[in-house]
């Protein structure tokens, strides 16, 4: 897979620092699963974080802290390492973290209007992560963004005013972008999409449909 559109470096730094909204974390984790370039960048930020941790401020621990910890070593209540690998396993076109959010089961698609189908992976207030299924040649209605929208292609491809996006590619759209993504002809385009605000549809019909689409 040739990935040409990557995650911004500052977003990888924010992921390393644990300061990214959950919906965006999903896209970062999915992309890093497929892209060694961004994995190396993420690990470099963790390297910097670790170096700062080593040289950073210390706070004294309470007197019994070590004894408490040593007493817990034999309990072994925490999950075994293999369990984590199991739940985070790739499933077909779905990278580990997406497969995990799907419960390792195929997505249950629901009609989202205009032939587009979707499965919501996560939703919290205005922030959401979802899978979109766009039949070949079909357009997602023209829209703008109130916040940031990350779209990662898992299967097929789409293009819009800013470029062409294939498997693994991430489009980062902000307030300044109005676009009409169109799926390439051929097999359906399946994307992972995350937003931290509602989309603004420019034509009347999708605006009416927005409460049902929940995007």
């Amino acid at each position: 897979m040739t990935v040409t559109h990557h995650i911004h470096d500052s977003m990888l730094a924010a992921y390393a620092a644990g300061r990214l909204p959950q919906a965006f974390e999903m896209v970062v984790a999915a992309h890093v699963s497929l892209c060694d370039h961004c994995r190396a960048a993420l690990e470099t930020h963790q390297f910097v974080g670790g170096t700062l941790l080593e040289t950073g401020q210390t706070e004294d621990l309470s007197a019994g802290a070590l004894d408490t910890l040593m007493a817990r070593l034999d309990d072994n209540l925490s999950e075994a390492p293999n369990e984590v690998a199991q739940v985070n396993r790739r499933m077909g076109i779905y990278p580990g973290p997406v497969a995990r959010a799907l419960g390792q089961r195929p997505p249950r698609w629901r009609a989202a209007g205009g032939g587009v189908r979707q499965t919501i992976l996560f939703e919290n207030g205005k922030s959401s992560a979802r899978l979109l299924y766009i039949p070949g040649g079909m357009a997602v209605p023209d829209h703008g963004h109130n916040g940031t929208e990350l779209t990662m292609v898992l299967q097929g491809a789409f293009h819009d005013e800013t470029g062409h996006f294939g498997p693994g590619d991430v489009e980062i759209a902000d307030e300044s972008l109005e676009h009409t993504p169109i799926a390439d002809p051929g097999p359906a385009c399946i994307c992972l999409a995350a937003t931290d605000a509602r989309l603004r549809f420019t034509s009347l019909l999708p605006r009416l449909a927005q409460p049902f689409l929940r995007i």
Partner: protein
Amino acid sequence: KIERSEQTEWMLAVRDDRDRAAFARLFGFFGPRIKGMLMRSGMSGAAAEDVVQDVMLAVWNKSAQFDPARAPVSAWIYRIARNRQVDLARKAARPLPEEIETETPPEADAGQILGLQQEGARLRDALARLGPEQREMIARAYLGDLTHSEIQAATGLPMGTIKSRIRLGLERLRHELKDLRS
């Protein structure tokens, strides 16, 4: 001549020999630093101590995953601590990248372990040479509670030496990942 750091030795003794004395030393070194980081991001002392316990327990239980040729102990623990902190804040499991399956035993990579350690020493130098304001800004970005856009501003600062260290570290890691995959 560079030798493996004390922390690396302790961590390998924990991983390979389940050495409790070495684990206690790791705790003595990292415990107060993790607590410092967590309190910096706004956590109370008592809550931070609980997280320190969880993180160190994970270090013990997941030690088999520690590969000193991939990441220094500090980076590995930093990652575990941030994951734990996010899980707790949300009461939900954080989306994590797939792990890379490694087959080569890390012992074969003595040169890489030292290379990574040298990289760390140079990064510490570069950080020490920053002006106090820039050093504080970057520490807040990685250890504190900046928002994503504030982190963007902090990591976008013109910090010549540290940037070039990050870039070199990136080149190294990209190289190693390529070897792992082949």
